[in-house]
């Protein structure tokens, strides 16, 4: 049977290996709004258009200036004087004909005045180089409409992102270093009887050297249990003793020297992690105890219905444990032994998932929803990822900016380092103040640099005072931010473009975990920091 790959599959092959066909589908169904097609904006969009976002709409009332063309790959000099949204749409659209590009020649403020519901249609709104007032107005509209909002700016050698989303749930977080779910501390019945079927002492040499390490550890654990009152090896000393016990099980030849049995070496190497007690992480526990999990209604999103179903499983069927994940790592073994062992875990996982499925069904029924509304496939995926579920909840911009709810602690603690990224955040807030007062940013023209330093310093001080922040900002930073003249150097815009686009993709595909909630990039030192403000 010929497995012909479509042109799209070929083109997107390298990214499909990261987020799968289902992730790609989400991407292709998404419509992203970009406000302001400056270099930062077009670089963000470029990294969404290339992987095949469904559609984008640029909102921008500005006309293209010579300065705009100088740092923007998607504006050419014969577009000077034309509407910037339109000009940028053309060159971005050209990158990928799968994508639908649109533009609105209007300032966001006007749209907020006349038609705020315009923004409700988007999967995500990305606001670039927005003045504070526009940003807060838009933030409020999007917060109430439950549309995720990503604020981005490039200011001199500083990049900044702020994610505003009420609640974003992630099933497939793809953790980098996940511990295996082997249940060696509390083997389920089928695993127990499978382990029973092995007789290490009675085996031939070939079988002995090709028995999976999981079986070996399990067998020796049984021995250990009988001699240690059914307690797991707890500390370093006990674990070493346990490893020794296993080592003694290595076959010896006629001369008494141990044979080379790599599977036993693997067993010994894996003792430290394999004996970790099976337990539910505090993160997942928090989800179980959360409000969304307790109050299931017909409006409850599938994520929470499934979380509740898994909680029911944990309490009623799983003996306090999550459904078995069903995967085991590769290990030295002959094919048959490995496959058989793998199937024991796989079948248990399927069984557990079908029990969870029944809980899902009864929950759906209890709120009058059809039982097929959450698919078996989704439930299976959920169960497989039950240990890695994540929820990201960001505070609103209103909360960040309000004197009553500003996160003073986060700011003051991070300012301990005095030269970290937090001072850059405070400077960005300060230049916003400057803009509010003077309708321009500091130091744009050479002659302004000197005189703006003292004006900017006043803004810094008033900011710190208003929020009651007992920190000091070095004069050097005030000088530096005047020096920047609100420039948007392309390389910094491009760094931000890559960073922001990937966060957007995470939000759209619901895979991998978005940042929470403020990200600052310092191109001078090539360092970054994330704050929760």
């Amino acid at each position, binding site marked *: 049977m*010929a*497995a012909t790959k479509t*042109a799209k599959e*070929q*083109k997107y*092959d*390298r*990214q499909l*290996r*990261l987020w799968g066909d289902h992730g790609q589908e989400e991407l292709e169904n998404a419509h992203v709004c970009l406000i302001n097609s400056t*270099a930062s904006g077009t670089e963000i969009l*470029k*990294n969404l258009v*290339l992987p095949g976002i469904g559609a984008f709409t640029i909102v921008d009332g500005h006309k293209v200036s*010579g*300065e705009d*063309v*100088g740092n*923007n*790959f998607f504006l*050419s*000099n014969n577009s000077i004087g034309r509407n910037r949204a339109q000009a940028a*749409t*053309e060159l971005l*659209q*050209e990158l990928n004909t799968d994508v*639908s*590009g*649109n533009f*609105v020649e209007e300032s966001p403020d006007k749209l907020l005045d006349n038609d705020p519901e315009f923004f409700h249609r988007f999967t995500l709104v990305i606001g670039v180089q927005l003045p504070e007032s526009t940003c807060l107005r838009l933030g409020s509209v999007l917060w109430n409409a439950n549309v995720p909002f990503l604020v981005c700016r490039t200011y001199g*050698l500083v990049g900044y992102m702020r994610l505003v989303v009420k609640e974003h749930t992630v099933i497939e977080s793809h*953790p*980098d270093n996940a511990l295996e779910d082997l249940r060696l501390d509390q083997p389920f019945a089928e695993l127990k009887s499978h382990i029973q079927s092995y007789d290490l002492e009675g085996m031939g040499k070939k079988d002995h050297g*090709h028995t999976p390490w999981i079986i070996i550890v399990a067998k020796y654990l049984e021995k250990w249990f009988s001699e240690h009152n059914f307690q797991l090896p707890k500390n370093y000393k006990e674990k070493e003793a346990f490893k020794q016990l296993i080592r003694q099980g290595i076959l010896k030849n006629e001369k008494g020297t141990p044979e080379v049995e790599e599977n036993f070496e693997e067993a010994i190497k894996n003792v430290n992690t394999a004996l970790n007690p099976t337990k539910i992480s505090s993160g997942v526990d928090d989800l179980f105890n959360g409000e969304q999990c307790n109050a299931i209604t017909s409006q409850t999103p599938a994520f929470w219905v499934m979380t509740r179903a898994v909680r029911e499983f944990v309490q009623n069927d799983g003996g306090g444990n999550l459904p078995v994940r069903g995967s085991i790592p590769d290990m030295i*073994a*002959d*094919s048959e032994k490995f*496959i058989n062992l793998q199937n024991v875990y796989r079948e248990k996982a399927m069984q557990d998932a079908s029990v969870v499925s029944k809980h899902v069904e009864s929950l759906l029924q209890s709120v009058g929803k059809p039982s097929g509304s959450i698919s078996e496939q989704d439930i299976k995926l959920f169960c497989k990822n039950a240990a890695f579920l994540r929820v990201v909840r960001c505070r609103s911009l209103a909360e960040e900016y309000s004197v009553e709810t500003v996160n003073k602690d986060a700011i003051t603690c991070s300012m301990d380092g005095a030269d970290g990224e937090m001072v850059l955040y405070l400077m960005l807030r300060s230049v916003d103040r400057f803009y509010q007062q003077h309708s321009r940013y500091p130091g744009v023209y050479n002659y302004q640099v000197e005189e703006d330093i003292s004006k900017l310093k006043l803004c810094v001080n008033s900011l710190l005072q208003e929020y009651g922040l007992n920190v000091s900002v070095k004069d*050097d930073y005030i000088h*530096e931010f005047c*020096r920047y*003249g609100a*420039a*948007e*150097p392309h*390389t910094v815009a*491009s*760094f931000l473009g*890559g960073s922001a*686009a*990937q966060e957007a993709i995470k939000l759209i595909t619901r895979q*991998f*975990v978005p940042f*929470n909630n403020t990200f600052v990039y310092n191109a*001078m*030192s*090539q*360092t*970054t920091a*994330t704050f929760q403000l």
Partner: protein
Amino acid sequence: MADTDEPEKKRRRVVELTEKMVVDGGSRDGGEWDGRWNHINTFLERPGPFTHPDFEPSTESLQFLLDTCKILVIGAGGLGCELLKDLALSGFRHIHVVDMDTIDVSNLNRQFLFRLKDVGRPKADIAADFINGRIPGCNVVPHFKKIQDFDESFYRQFHIIVCGLDSIIARRWMNGMLLSLLVYEDGVLDPSSIIPLIDGGTEGFKGNARVIFPGMTACIDCTLELYPPQINFPMCTIASMPRLPEHCVEYVRMLLWPKEKPFGDGVGLDADDPEHIQWVYQKSQERAAEFSITGVTYRLTQGVVKRIIPAVASTNAVIAAACATEVFKIASSAYIPLNNYMVFNDVDGLYTYTFEAERKENCSSCSQVPQDLHFSPSAKLQEVVDYLTENASLQMKSPAITATLEGKNKTLYLQTVASIEQRTRPNLSKSLKELGLLDGQELAVADVTTPQTLLFKLSFTS
């Protein structure tokens, strides 16, 4: 409001318009307009509290970038395309780009200078054309060549070299080349012979960017242990006890194909030929069925055969941007450069870690400390070859060893030329003593990982 009716008509008109624009671009306009360089001028013309101690604000710095500064970009792929754009929009006009590859459909999700119509054409050529057309005044010179096709006289002309490579071997070679350009007078390094090397690498959602001043800061080989050798599956697993779908694919690729020669005698497996992959896929499925292994898909098969590393536009954008920022800093002296290694990962939030990689005291490439080889005179030459390939700090691929014996230069073993390999193969099972090697003897070793021959001193152990 946006025209959302007749999207196809609109799209066609947009394509028409942009094709015209890309061609007419701006090159006929001479290349300058008001405000063009405003976004970088502030960094060149204004003093500041964080600038490099050597920095002097001047209106001439921009001219240096535009007219004089010569940058070499190695690779016109995921990182290369980004680098060319970033440099061109940062004032650099004299840019050369080297890439030996042609364009493939799977490049198009991130290598944005290429279109479907360019598939099969040389990356360097198309990339240069695109940039030159889009950025008036920029003069990117393409080289559809391997980096090894050039010698010192080529590399010496550049002020800064930026690498966007996908191979550790190529990186090491580039590293070695720049080290070979260093001039020492009375043991003191002449700073004007240093060409800074900015190196970027990406894999999925991970990446790194580093700044190397050859002879002064840690070089690629100083930190070779950061790149652990690629682990391949053991042969016995592939041959007789597969457990994973990957094992089944490797079996077909390594054992079945040479046996069955499905496309004729002497026809090697071409990973880019969909028919070949299809054959491997079907045979892998059969192999898997034999052992009750599930999970062999076409995508997995292709991934294993081509050793595919997943890739997206965003990571490449981030890493290339960081590298280009460093090029700008160094070329303009505007800021102190990254010192010297940044690691990036955006799987969970965004994470970076910046640190100073240290020089290795006895680095085989940059330390100028003669490398010792300790072997017993009865050790076989094969053991020396194994050491050179397996040692974590050397990780050579196919070392060729020569020595001066009785006044004559003798090749002890060389792998890369079949006839010489055959002739010298018996030497592998001879002892060092048998081969006539003496204690303290110098051995010259050549390998793809370095443009220069490395000298080792043979020290006999008792």
